[in-house]
């Protein structure tokens, strides 16, 4: 394991950066796409272990957020470090370290045909609700989650509204003179 990168001073831009790893996971620290935020790209299998390592070794005690992005219509142009295959869904986890208030964003690629991710519940029990939300709105399932049901939408709702192929469901606004002419 390398020395914890968060201990270092502000990252200096390096020409052709060598892929940097932390706890065996590829990280980016100065990617312009992420606005120079420390980002980790663990594969699905390593993801829970990585977050656990962060918690145990580097005091990332607070898991602030779990959300997901559907990159359906933004597929090709999105820059990802080498070795990471872009998938349709991306799970985004925000953590903050109690040691020096360093934030890290963990981005996990989740394929469309098998949208299953192991749950973070055992590491950070506080992810229970946001994982349910991601399941509800984005349709990513969490393996091992204690209660994976819809949280925001009615239980019998069909579809996952935040997916890009789900219409916003707008109805026409009512006006008086709308039907005459045009």
């Amino acid at each position, binding site marked *: 394991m390398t020395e914890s990168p968060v201990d270092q001073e502000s990252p200096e831009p390096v020409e052709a950066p060598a892929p940097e790893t932390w706890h065996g996971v590829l990280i980016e620290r100065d990617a312009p*796409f992420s606005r120079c935020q420390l980002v980790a790209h663990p594969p699905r299998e390593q993801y829970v272990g990585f977050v656990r390592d962060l*918690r145990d070794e580097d005091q990332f005690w607070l898991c602030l957020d779990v959300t997901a992005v559907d990159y359906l219509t933004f597929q090709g142009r999105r820059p990802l470090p080498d070795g990471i295959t872009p998938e349709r869904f991306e799970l985004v986890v925000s953590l903050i370290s109690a040691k020096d208030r360093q934030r890290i964003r963990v981005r996990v690629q989740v394929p469309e045909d098998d949208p299953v991710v192991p749950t973070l519940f055992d590491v950070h029990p506080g992810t229970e609700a946001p994982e349910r939300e991601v399941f509800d709105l984005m349709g990513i399932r969490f393996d091992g989650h204690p209660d994976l049901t819809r949280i925001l939408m009615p239980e019998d709702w069909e579809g996952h509204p935040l997916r890009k192929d789900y219409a916003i469901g707008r109805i026409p606004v009512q006006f008086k003179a709308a039907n005459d002419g045009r």
Partner: protein
Amino acid sequence: MAVDVKGGGIVDTDEGAQELTPTRKGMEAKELLREVGCVLRLSEADAEALEPGPDDETMIINMGPQHPSTHGVLRVMLELDGETVVRTKPIMGYLHTGMEKTGEDLTFLQGPTNVTRMDYASPLFNELVFCLATEKLLGIEDDIPARATWIRMLLCEVNRISSHLLFLATNGMDIGAVTMMLYGWREREEMLRFLERITGLRMNHNFIRVGGIAADLPPGWRDEVLGLMDMLPPRLDEYDVLMTGQPIWRERLQGVGVITAQEAMALGATGPILRSTGVPWDLRRDAPYLHYDQLEFDVICGSYGDCFDRYAIRLNEVRESIRLIHQIVDMIPPGDYRIQDKKVTPPPRARIDESMEALIHHFKIFTEGFKVPEGEAYAAVESPRGELGCYLVSDGSAKPYRMHIRGPSFFHLQCLPHMMRGGLIADGVAVISSVDPILGEVDR
């Protein structure tokens, strides 16, 4: 730095983050959460179908979604043994507004009108965090005029006071102090009127915009805000007499709804809930945004993690905000209040008449908005309820590709089962109230 709230007054202690020391190494959810069994994992449909059998000792009762103490439309499914709460399940979604989806349909220019309606008790924070994230995406976060930043801070602190007053009012109501409710509204109304004079609306202001604020402060604002800050302290002292010093009040809240620092952090709690457990975690100090690093203020901390601590923290945070506002008022510099970036800010009205280019800019910004470079950004502010975050992904168009708001209340609701277990129904009410959930932010 940490402040003891037990005595009612502010006492400086050097206790600090005593609860932070134990490491969480290797502690999984099952060991950490002393009562994993406090969460009622029963689907709503099953609960409906549940007929009380003859052998049931417990009964399942639904608090909400329309219940006076659930602050809107939270529904709490309680398993009761007599009047003692055994397991709890907070059920949300009754106010799911699809704001994240709508946010993808609105331009960055219209964005604040959308997000401001999330945490409706502190709308300016929502606008602020959205704008901060957008500015990060635009790469202009360092170019925001100082005046705009200070005004943002002023408004946010006023908003924090009004939000905490709302809490004090509803908390009073939930514990049965009817008059406190009315006093809270009385003071809050003054705050709202001040905000209305500045922004034109009492709530949901749409005032903090990407690149600055919508308009300058009106004349007389300084006297007004200072007047408000003079009006508040004696009123807060009255609250102290009415509630903090009231033995019934203390009995009702002290030792109720206790949560430890470890649990709170594990459950993702921030803000007053985390601070009540003794963790001096305040983004304004720990991850300074705007110009909070130039100000002097205390982070109010509790030590027991009970409802009383959470109440006292909020009450004393009002005092801290007053202190902050006094400093901010003196710091607001002259200058622009919006970034002078043609891309982001519409041209001055007077320039439209004189310059064709300005007119075109005007049209472009208002019809299609401004384009934001590809990327992702997360910004966080310390809202009255805790860390309010905004995660934005832009695909280079004028509309966010994905907008996600991390609402603190959403996480705090997970603490409910742990806080409510073993208490009476009345304690449960106090706990819900002390979490101060705003459902608009939970359900978004």
